[in-house]
């Protein structure tokens, strides 16, 4: 063992002796507090899981349905010729034709 290591060990031994004071008191309420906190968070976790089970899948189905309807409407609108139906012009011409 080199001189530094020997001296370091002596320093550590002295520091150890200084740290040998009594441990702080046990907080009697700590256990029940932590227990309640843990149970509260697990209950919250269960509630979130329950909500997800009820609304998550239904929400997903609803979104998919809306998406399918939108796609169908878009497809139908795509098939109908948008041009060649000058609705505004026709309406204007019809309105003013009797004048």
């Amino acid at each position, binding site marked *: 063992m080199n001189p530094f290591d020997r001296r*370091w060990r*002596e320093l550590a031994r002295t520091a150890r002796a200084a740290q040998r004071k009594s*441990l*702080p008191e046990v907080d009697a309420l700590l*256990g*029940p507090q932590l227990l309640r906190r*843990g149970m509260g968070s697990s209950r919250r976790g269960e509630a979130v899981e329950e909500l997800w089970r009820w609304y998550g899948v239904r929400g997903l189905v609803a979104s998919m349905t809306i998406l399918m309807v939108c796609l169908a409407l878009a497809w139908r609108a795509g098939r109908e010729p948008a041009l060649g139906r000058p609705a505004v012009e026709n309406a204007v011409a019809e309105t003013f034709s009797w004048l």
Partner: protein
Amino acid sequence: MDAAPPDIWPCLEGVLAGDDAAACDLVCLLHPLVMKIVRANRPNRMSEEDLGQEVFAKVFDRLPSYERRDGVPFEHWVARLAVRTCLDAIRAENRRPEVRLADLADGEQAWLDYLTQRSETSPMGAENDAVEIMERLLEGLSPEDRLVIRLMDLQEHSAAEVSRLTGWSAVGVRVRAFRARTRLRRLAQEARQKGHL
């Protein structure tokens, strides 16, 4: 006559079932072990009580996922959790500003002289100064090195025990301790030469 300490396994079952008395018993049973680890490994600016509570909070949070293994005491799991919590706290700690050697207490200076072989006899009656100079030197190490030195030199754990507590290999712990002491020697010598620590 003192009542016999409660057994740990019924306590754990009670805690998992939400029993307040079992939670009290568990904290009382683990308190000496947790506080001993916390005391030896806490960062300078964090109180023992705060860090101890953090460890207990983790123990209670993770208890449902604890898996009992034959021949492995529950205390090992707790000790490892406590050591990891301390290591995280040390990692989060900022270093104290450097101090001039002239501003150190006489006892601290005497210990530094002794470490750097400027004096042949160790200072007498300077126990708190020994703690202080040791902490100042340890601050120059990485959190992992600091943890190993504290566990081995302050708590007198063997390399195998440190390996169990940290999850690092025993050989790795020995190498780390050797390098950490070499770095401590260099830090002490540099402090003497530069005049600040």
